[in-house]
């Protein structure tokens, strides 16, 4: 059972454009949604995260839009740069103290100069 789904699998944008990555989930108990960025040969690194009590979170050029009723969220990468080229993972976990993350399958983003 794939509890966290991501789309598209890959995305190519031009430098300066906004990249939009989508994520949906099935488990209503999920209430914490971090997005991780991963470069080849490295471990994932937290980019930005949102809790289900919020519907929007911004940090620099990254924005999460969250729709609890529809169980989906999206990550917008504004003014994309070639250095943003990476794989982005949507993840989810439940309430309470530190618990395991359930990851989506990832979106590979390529930003062309």
């Amino acid at each position: 059972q794939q509890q966290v789904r991501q789309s598209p699998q890959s995305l190519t944008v031009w430098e300066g454009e906004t990249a939009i990555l989508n994520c949906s989930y099935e488990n209503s108990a999920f209430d914490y949604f971090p997005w991780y960025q991963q470069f080849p040969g490295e471990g994932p690194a937290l980019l930005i995260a949102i809790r289900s009590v919020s519907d929007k979170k911004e940090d620099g050029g990254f924005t999460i839009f969250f729709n609890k009723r529809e169980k989906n969220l999206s990550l917008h990468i504004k003014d994309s740069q070639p250095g943003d080229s990476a794989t982005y993972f949507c993840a989810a976990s439940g309430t309470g103290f530190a618990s395991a993350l359930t990851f989506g399958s990832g979106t590979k983003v390529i930003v062309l100069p």
Partner: protein
Amino acid sequence: NAGVIQTPRHKVTGKGQEATLWCEPISGHSAVFWYRQTIVQGLEFLTYFRNQAPIDDSGMPKERFSAQMPNQSHSTLKIQSTQPQDSAVYLCASSFWGEQDTQYFGPGTRLLVL
């Protein structure tokens, strides 16, 4: 702060051999997580510890896999009788034990079983 340290970075074993992977969490973090990453299955949770005690091992294969955390400065993941399907990147992450605290990942150990 050196971040999460994982050793070795690469390991090649023959089918049937044992592999031991090491993780040193960030100093002061009390939760340690192990994940496995493959092209086909993606990022999968294996197990985690809090204050060295095992909390959830629901993702661990029932046979051949075991994890320990003998002290607060390191954890090990041991795979006995390795099989080609065990080939993956094994990732360790650590966090504070707080509500939904950030998990910081190490660079991973790339295991190849021939």
